[in-house]
């Protein structure tokens, strides 16, 4: 039985359907990677799980968690879960912290809200949490403001804040995209260690297939709000089935290091996701190198290809 079961999730704006009929599930202590280019609907998927989709977005489908459908919960109940059972960290550590409050106050705020700690106890716990995310001299840093910290440190603070109440699911939306390459692995290692130590499920959102091999247990590849492939990371990296997954793999600097130096450039996927808009058949068809005539008219269904492997492409074999 999955910890979190997302069924037919759709997030629609008047201008665009950002997430269209997405289904996936996450098990306890597992890392699920959501991968896709910018604009493929990853962030809105995460916000939908948190119940934080901005207006005028409309969310439908079901998100089963702990025996209830999160999308059907009244807002007051959802608030109790948010930050306690499901927590989230964001892509932009530079702006995601409140500039006028100390980081200690911001971490303590979550603890006081959900665990009813006193100000004193919450502060002590905040120091412990800063230590847990490897911030040096936490007793002093607890009184710092965000502008004094580097991007990597801010993201650690965000992580400390998110894990404060031992959530069962942690959503990390491109947690390293805004960070220096040298810091990225440290932050991902930290998330991975915390996942294991605290027994959380981790939904790791990224646009870089390069990180999934090392840090994910399962991968969902998204394109234009749809799941186009689901696989285990080894299988996906060895033999991507969907032409879009193949394209992503070719575009990853990490995985193509040698090709990068040899050819001097990465293979780009031609075209852009804008071409998916209003596409009746397969959304990827306008950019696909193995496109067939039927692709323009028939939207491909997900097919099972071996164990725990799904692909939405009739051509893939």
């Amino acid at each position: 039985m999955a910890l979190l079961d997302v069924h037919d999730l759709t997030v629609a704006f008047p201008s665009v359907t950002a997430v269209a009929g997405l289904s996936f599930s996450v098990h306890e202590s597992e890392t699920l990677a959501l991968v896709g280019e910018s604009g493929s609907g990853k962030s809105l998927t995460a916000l939908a799980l948190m119940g934080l989709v901005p207006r005028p977005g409309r969310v439908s489908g079901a998100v089963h968690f702990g025996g209830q459908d999160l999308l059907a919960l009244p807002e007051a109940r959802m608030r109790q879960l948010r930050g306690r059972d499901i927590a989230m960290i964001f892509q932009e550590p530079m702006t995601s912290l409140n500039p006028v409050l100390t980081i200690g106050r911001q971490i303590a705020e979550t603890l006081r809200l959900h665990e009813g700690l006193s100000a004193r106890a919450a502060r002590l716990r905040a120091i412990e949490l800063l230590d847990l995310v490897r911030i040096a001299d936490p007793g002093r840093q607890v009184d710092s403001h965000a502008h004094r910290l580097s991007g990597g440190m801010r993201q650690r603070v965000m992580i400390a804040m998110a894990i404060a109440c031992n959530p069962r699911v942690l959503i990390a939306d491109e947690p390293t995209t805004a960070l220096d390459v040298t810091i990225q692995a440290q932050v991902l290692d930290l998330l991975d260690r915390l996942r294991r130590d605290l027994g959380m499920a981790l939904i790791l959102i990224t646009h870089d297939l390069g990180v999934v091999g090392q840090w994910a247990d399962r991968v969902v590849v998204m394109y234009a709000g749809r799941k186009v492939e689901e696989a285990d990371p080894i299988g996906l990296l060895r033999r991507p089935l969907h032409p879009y997954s193949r394209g992503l793999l070719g575009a990853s600097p990490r995985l193509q290091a040698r090709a990068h130096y040899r050819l001097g450039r990465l293979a780009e996927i031609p075209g852009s996701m804008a071409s998916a808009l209003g596409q009746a058949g397969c959304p990827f068809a306008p950019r696909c190198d193995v496109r067939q005539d039927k692709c323009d008219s028939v939207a491909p269904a997900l097919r099972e290809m071996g164990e725990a492997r799904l692909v939405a492409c009739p051509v893939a074999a």
Partner: protein
Amino acid sequence: MSTWRRVTRTARRTALQAVPSVLAILALNFLLLQLAPGDAADVMAAQTGSPTAQTVLELRSRFGLDAPLLDRLAAYLDNLAHFSLGMSPRFNVSVLSLIGERLPGTLALMLTALGIALVVGIALGAVMARFAGRPLDRAISVISLCCYSIPGFWIGLMLVVVFSVKLDWLPSGGMHSVGIEESGLAALLDMARHMVLPAASLSLFFVAIYARLTRAAMLEAQEQDFARTARAKGLSPSAVAIRHVLRNALIPVTTMAGVHVGALLGGSVVVETVFSWPGLGRLAFESMMNRDFNVLLGILFLSSLLVIVANAGVDILHSWLDPRIEDVG
């Protein structure tokens, strides 16, 4: 850096910057007043009924108004160095004691008006931001637009018509009830009753400004990433609005409040005259009419000090509200 050190550093810096500005303002005021036609001797001679050229000259030399301009400026600054603002030819008392008599009334009026404006304005702005685009927001917005565009003296007169003349709830002018000797709390309450209408008409304009400013600043702040982080913690909308959004929105609002102290002083000239409030504003108006330049200069000097103190207060408030200041200063 600790909050305390940040605050003291800001205070010291502001005090040092203030000295040259005050001196420059003083010299400029002095020279500008000389451009006005006539002087105290003219006015006083005219009041005797049948002035001769001789009387005017005598008066002028008695008050030292016949010395060359720069000598008079030097004498004024010399006086100032000895903590004196000179004499008022009209009242024949020292300017300092005249001002000292009137200052508390003006300060009480201004601080009350500013306090009302900030508290009511910020609260209204927060409500508007909370209900942005909905009827409540629209309604407050229309009312604030009216307060914003109607001149203060007219609001004052209308308040008098409604609350003193028609309803007879509140006194129409003055600072104390005539003929009643009271002390302690009773006197304070009596003064508060007299202050309601002038403070209201002085503050309405600023209530409108702060409401609009707060609304805009909160709408901007609630779109920021940190507000989303706060929501993701599970905080209620009001906790997000007050602890995170409003806290950030206060920074631009308090900046404007500092700028407005000068405007409040200007407004108090009108309001004090309408409500016969015995304050500096009315004294300034009377001194201008009587060409009592020493008193006027003293009041202008004091106003610039007040504005500088207010801005220093805002700077200090900022260094407390906004921890990023230390890196700029």
